[in-house]
């Protein structure tokens, strides 16, 4: 083998034999991590505007979701590169291709309910987005599936939190121990090194 020459990658060979369209998978993953990265950015703005007594009540929950969504980016990007993909060179193009809409601060942000609805929309899109990756990889690409389903579990918990705050429907679980705990994608699961 000469320098720079890439040998046969068995990790990819088995995917192709299992019928995974690796190019399509890389596209979906890039869109998914794009959504996580932009969400981290926009949730920063949303959290900053959780002000007053009402805002103070949800500020930490928004922070939990914000850091965990950033951790989702960290958890999946290495896999993108393992599959032979890469992050776009230009961050603007990266944001434009994100699979979910940007969680823009609404005009009536003084209403905490309005901020919560934007947050909920973001989590619901993320669930659909990672659901697509899970559907594509279940039983065929065990590594990507494992990462995507862990991310999806946390997105489902995020959705449950915001629904509980909006409609009082119980989410079924308690608060995080600390911001960025990421019980499914975090250090306990050894998916990220942060």
């Amino acid at each position, binding site marked *: 083998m000469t320098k720079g020459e890439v040998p046969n990658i068995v990790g990819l060979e088995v995917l192709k034999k299992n*019928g*995974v*369209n690796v190019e*399509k998978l890389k*596209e*979906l993953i890039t*869109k998914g991590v794009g959504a996580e990265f932009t969400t981290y950015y926009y949730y920063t703005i949303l959290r900053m505007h959780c002000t007053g007594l009402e805002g103070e009540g949800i500020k930490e929950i928004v922070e939990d979701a914000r850091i965990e969504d950033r951790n989702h980016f960290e958890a999946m990007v290495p896999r993108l590169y393992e599959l032979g993909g890469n992050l776009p060179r230009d961050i603007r193009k990266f*944001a*434009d*291709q*994100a*699979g979910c*809409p*940007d969680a*823009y*601060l*609404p*005009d*009536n942000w003084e209403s905490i309910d*309005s901020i919560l*609805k*934007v947050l909920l*929309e973001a989590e619901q*899109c993320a669930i*659909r*987005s990672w659901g*697509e990756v899970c*559907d594509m990889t279940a039983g065929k690409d065990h590594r990507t599936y494992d990462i995507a389903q862990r991310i999806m579990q946390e997105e489902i918990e995020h959705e449950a939190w915001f629904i509980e705050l909006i409609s009082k429907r119980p989410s079924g679980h308690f608060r995080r121990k600390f911001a960025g705990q990421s019980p499914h994608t975090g250090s306990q699961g050894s998916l990220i090194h942060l």
Partner: protein
Amino acid sequence: MTYSKTERHPVCKSSELGDNTMMKVSIDMVDVLVGRKNGKLFACDNSCPHKGASLSKGCFNGDNVVCHMHGYEYNVFTGKLENMKSWKKEDTWVEQDMEWRKSGDLILYSISEEGDTVYVSLK
């Protein structure tokens, strides 16, 4: 097995495609959405041209398939983008950037029916 793009590939039985139904089939690692709308067959790429979601999870609105992800609508016979649904659930939400919103049209495939079998070619 690799299929040539012009080859007609049997994808399902005619009885599996009732009127106003659609389903996803795979041809050589390409996911194809096939369906029957008001008695007429259609076939297109299953990936939504907007952000790649699976159109088979969507629904019909007239002759349009509605993507479950962001609600964009595409005519299943012409492939044209017919509705670029806004993400705004409230008037106070700020509209998305046009670069994010833009989408191409559906990729259409040739579909035919012979006997009790439906065929698609990826041309």
